[in-house]
């Protein structure tokens, strides 16, 4: 163990680590860690002042415990103290602890900033470096505010050491990414560009990174960097590996800097100045030439470094997209790599070629590699590489090779990894549609897709095929024939049944002439699948049956028998039962003419962007769709204003509303007629029909223009009168006006909740087009997911309908979702918005604990930001039983005999969110004389403490 003697050994630390390693079980390890934590805590809290060495040792232990995955909630102050030590090792460990453990919104940031300021002003380069590292690593706004103007000064000052300059450049870059608005541009910018000429290559590398980011924001200010970068690059590329100090890496001259310079040049179009341009072209040619030279070393590091530069040069060539000869050479080079024995190179070659495929100069050249790429798809052992091959095939596809590529993708799909199947399905569906010359091929392809990978075919895909078939009458007969044949397969996927049901329902007549597919055969075929299907599919099939009655009067009796059977008329599922009843009645009482009108063929859908494409974009992010979007990779990264990535598991409403209403695809009600019938008054023969057939009133908006986005709720004032009443209870009346009453019943379990919303019509007139939806504010998105089931669009006078909302708490939240209600009452549109009483405390699980446990935990949560306290005047009579009920209703367990003062109330619970669980302790001290309360809350999260305190304090 030679290293021990070299460094600054800390014996206690080594012993502790050895102990942990000797632990036989997880429990023993946790026990040892808790013992150590208690020890450190008592040392930190003890009266005896610790010397720097001990502090350093304990902080180091805490770091190790953190590494093992334990939450460290103390020691920050001690670490901050170490910052002001004059001993380098102590200062260093302080900074390390802070940059690993302190997040950007800690309360200590002011103290930390102070220490940083001192070190920056110390003129000691080592200390300055530490401070700069810390700013860069934490990168918070407060730090940016404090230092953003200081750092440029350090960067361009003449007497700054090279290593400090390096750190300062990167520190500035980091602040520019986290808080771009705080970094002032100014006269320093010109001087930064000249750092490209610096003697020290480390400084040049750091400066290049900085300039690249700045140049993306304001390209004009940094135009002068182009010529400097080209000159520098040229010197490196043509150098004979001398004068580069130690920056030659395995015989490659300064590869990292070359890569950075090539990235910088990708911020700009090709240089306009002819001399400069030819110098750059020369550089790029040299790099391409070097790839052909025999390697100077057998080591993989040599070829890695060389190729890193080469790939970046190719990226630049693709970016400029102006020199056909270079583009073709780049393409050939990548072609060589496609068959290289090094997997990494094959991967990168496939990836680069994707972008190359979108250039008009090289698209054809890329296409020549199609066989190799297809081969890669079949033979590569690594799924990452295969995925790149799929991407490239998708990018190089055009009308000439679409059939081949789609066929290959389809056959690959049968064995593809589960993780990438859905994406391939989407890609195949898009290519098939985009390059379909004859739509019979398209229909075949999609049906194949469903056959091979039915489970991965999303709704959008089968909606789309129906949409296309309905819009193109030349393919309808073929589609009907094909689905009819496909349905004969012994085990066909439910998606196929859906497509089959829909298409035969619309166009079954086109193939009915053939005795092999006579109406009765068609019906029997569909009905043979009926019992194997889920409820939505069955509902769709019932609609297909009623369409059959219209298309083929000869099977009417058979179908009526089916509808009349108990399994339909008395089906446990309301939707199915209702359809069966309605369709049966419709077929009995309506005349042929009326049937023909009501059950008319679907009108064509308006043309729109494919919803599948939207889905793929969503899945992959816009940057990864070559050929359709501008495919350039976001070369130089971006700011870190990262939004929470969208979860793709729940399709957002725009997709659901697209094309078809998901839960009731009823082709039966071609609704324009129904709608107009509703306004014609009671003399019209339809009135009866409508009464018995009430639900489709929701359909007009969905079926007539299925593409329109859900009409955004008009802005109305959000009512929150009764909001606070629901903090401690789950049931009651939420809202009431002259027309409508809204009642709630809700239940919660861990991080999930379900709310039943009852809408009562207080008038004697129907509410029409009733709809209600839930919207989350921006802050709330991602914190709370609310999924609202659809609600009946008609509420009869005096009647009540129910809506179910399912909720999931992802992380702690403060805002509340808003329930938007719209309906028509006597012709006037009514808009109501109510704040839904979903609060953080609903996700409480009560926790019983002993007095000892309680106080131990209470002490553990002792950090100042974890506690929130409020003293307030009581608004209601101070009744002990009522208070108890309220605390219980709040969701915590009421702990008796914990508080020495029996008049006080003490509670404990755990907030469950999907991300985490937050333990919470509360104490309420009433003062009856003064009619005041003091409420104290301690949780491990300051935002939670604050929110809970706000909620509860208004209840007394």
């Amino acid at each position, binding site marked *: 163990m030679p290293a021990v003697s070299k460094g600054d050994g800390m014996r206690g630390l080594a012993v502790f680590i050895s102990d942990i390693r000797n632990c036989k079980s997880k429990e023993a390890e946790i026990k040892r860690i808790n013992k150590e934590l208690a020890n450190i805590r008592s040392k930190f809290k003890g009266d005896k002042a610790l010397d720097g060495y001990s502090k350093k040792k304990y902080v180091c232990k805490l770091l190790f415990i953190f590494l093992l995955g334990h939450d460290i909630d103390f020691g920050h102050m001690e670490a901050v103290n170490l910052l002001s030590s004059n001993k380098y090792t102590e200062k260093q460990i302080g900074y390390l602890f802070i940059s690993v453990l302190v997040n950007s919104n800690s309360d200590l940031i002011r103290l930390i900033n102070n220490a940083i300021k001192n070190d920056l002003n110390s003129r000691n380069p080592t200390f300055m470096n530490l401070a700069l590292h810390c700013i860069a690593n934490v990168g918070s706004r407060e730090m940016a505010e404090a230092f953003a103007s200081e750092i440029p000064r350090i960067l361009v000052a003449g007497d700054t050491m090279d290593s400090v300059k390096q750190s300062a450049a990167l520190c500035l870059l980091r602040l520019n990414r986290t808080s771009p608005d705080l970094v002032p541009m100014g006269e320093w910018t010109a001087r930064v560009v000249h750092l490209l000429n610096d003697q020290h290559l480390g400084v040049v590398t750091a400066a290049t990174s900085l300039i690249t980011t700045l140049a993306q924001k304001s390209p004009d200010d940094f135009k002068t960097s182009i010529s400097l970068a080209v000159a520098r690059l040229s010197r490196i590329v043509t150098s004979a590996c001398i004068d580069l100090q130690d920056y030659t890496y395995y015989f490659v001259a300064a590869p990292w800097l070359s890569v950075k310079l090539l990235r910088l040049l990708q911020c700009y179009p090709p240089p306009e100045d002819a001399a400069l341009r030819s110098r750059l072209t020369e550089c790029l040619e040299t790099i391409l030439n070097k790839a052909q030279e025999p390697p100077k070393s057998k080591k993989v590091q040599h070829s*890695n470094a060389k190729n890193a530069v080469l790939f970046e040069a190719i990226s630049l060539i693709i970016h400029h997209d102006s020199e056909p000869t270079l583009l073709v050479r780049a393409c050939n080079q990548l072609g060589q790599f496609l068959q290289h024995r090094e997997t990494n190179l094959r991967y990168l070659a496939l990836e680069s070629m994707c972008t190359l495929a979108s250039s008009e100069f090289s698209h054809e050249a890329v296409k020549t590699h199609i066989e190799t790429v297809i081969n890669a798809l079949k033979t590569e052992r690594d799924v990452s590489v295969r995925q790149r091959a799929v991407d490239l095939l998708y990018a190089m596809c055009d009308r000439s090779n679409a059939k081949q590529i789609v066929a290959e993708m389809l056959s690959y799909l049968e064995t593809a990894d589960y993780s990438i199947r859905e994406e391939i399905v989407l890609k195949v569906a898009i290519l098939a549609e985009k390059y379909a010359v004859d739509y019979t091929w398209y229909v075949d392809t999609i049906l194949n897709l469903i056959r091979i990978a039915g489970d991965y075919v999303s709704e959008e895909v089968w909606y789309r095929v129906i949409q296309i078939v309905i819009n193109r009458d030349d393919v309808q007969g073929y589609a009907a024939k094909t689905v009819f044949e496909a349905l004969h397969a012994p085990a066909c996927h439910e998606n196929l049944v859906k497509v089959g049901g829909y298409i035969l329902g619309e166009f079954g007549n086109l193939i009915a002439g053939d005795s092999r597919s006579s109406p009765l055969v068609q019906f029997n075929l569909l009905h043979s699948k009926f019992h194997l299907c889920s409820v939505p599919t069955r509902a769709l099939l019932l609609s297909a049956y009623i369409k059959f009655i219209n298309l083929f009067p000869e099977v009417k009796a058979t179908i009526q028998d089916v509808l009349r059977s108990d399994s339909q008329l008395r089906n446990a599922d309301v939707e199915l039962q209702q359809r069966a009843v309605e369709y049966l009645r419709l077929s009995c009482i309506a005349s042929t003419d009326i049937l023909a009108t009501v059950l008319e063929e679907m009108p064509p859908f308006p043309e729109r962007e494919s919803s599948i494409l939207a889905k793929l974009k969503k899945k992959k992010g816009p940057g990864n769709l070559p050929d359709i979007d501008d495919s350039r990779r976001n070369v130089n990264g971006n700011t*870190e204003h990262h939004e929470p990535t969208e979860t793709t598991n729940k399709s957002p409403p725009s997709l659901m509303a697209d094309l078809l209403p998901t839960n009731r695809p009823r082709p039966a009600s071609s609704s324009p007629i129904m709608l107009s019938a509703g306004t014609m008054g009671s003399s019209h023969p339809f009135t009866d029909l409508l009464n018995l057939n009430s639900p489709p009133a929701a359909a007009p908006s969905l079926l007539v223009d299925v593409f329109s986005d859900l009409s955004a709720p008009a802005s109305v004032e959000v009512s929150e009168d009764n909001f606070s009443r629901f903090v401690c209870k789950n049931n009651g009346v939420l809202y009431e006006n002259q027309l409508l009453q809204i009642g709630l019943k809700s239940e919660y379990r861990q991080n999930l909740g379900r709310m039943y919303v009852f809408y009562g019509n207080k008038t004697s007139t129907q509410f029409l087009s009733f709809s209600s939806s839930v919207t989350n504010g921006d802050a709330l998105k991602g914190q709370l997911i609310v999924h609202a089931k659809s609600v009946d669009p008609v509420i009869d006078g005096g009647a009540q309908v129910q809506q179910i909302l399912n909720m999931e708490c992802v992380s702690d939240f403060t805002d509340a979702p808003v329930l938007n209600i719209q309906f028509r009452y006597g012709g006037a549109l009514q808009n109501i918005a109510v704040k839904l009483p979903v609060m953080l405390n609903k996700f409480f699980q009560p926790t019983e604990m002993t007095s000892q446990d309680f106080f131990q935990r209470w002490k553990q949560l002792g950090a100042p930001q974890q506690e929130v306290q409020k003293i307030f005047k009581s608004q209601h009579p101070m009744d002990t039983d009522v208070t108890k009920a309220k605390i219980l209703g709040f969701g915590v367990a009421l702990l008796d005999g914990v508080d020495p003062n029996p008049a006080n109330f003490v509670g404990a619970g755990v907030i469950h969110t999907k991300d985490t669980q937050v333990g919470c302790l509360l104490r309420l001290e009433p003062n009856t004389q003064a009619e005041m309360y003091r409420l104290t809350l301690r949780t491990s999260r300051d935002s939670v403490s604050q929110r809970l305190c706000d909620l509860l304090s208004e209840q007394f």
Partner: protein
Amino acid sequence: MIKAILIFNNHGKPRLIRFYQYFAEDMQQQIIRETFHLVSKRDDNVCNFLEGGSLIGGSDYKLIYRHYATLYFVFCVDSSESELGILDLIQVFVETLDKCFENVCELDLIFHMDKVHYILQEVVMGGMVLETNMNEIVAQVENKISPSGGLSAAPARAVSAVKNMNLPEIPRNINIGDINIKVPSLSPF
């Protein structure tokens, strides 16, 4: 930019974690588990790049990793970094560790976590690459940790001393009076 650097062993035990973007502690542990799961099931001779797991940002981020004996070194980076460049950087980092620890092994990382952090700090700063020149890195580290300097660092320090000749300050004169205690008995490995 580099979003995170994770080092864990063949059993998924973390040996060094460094996040350059804020994640809560439990999230960090989840990311480690997810990453380990993604990386460890891959054969040794497949490629060194893969798309990031869903927790760390999905396909916008790449995991670039190398597997050395018992340890995985994983860098999670965005599209602004060159894949091969990062692969080289991992190599530089490991070679530097090797120089500083003289035949580095997993145990060194366990018992000298702080020192590993300092070395990393000289290579990557705030998610950006600070230095790729191995000698320079070693010089900085040796310089700071033991001002008396190890033998191995001498030539490199000479280089930087010459380079900095015309500058007023040289970071050499920091006096750290620290006690060196040998660890008496290490647990069997």
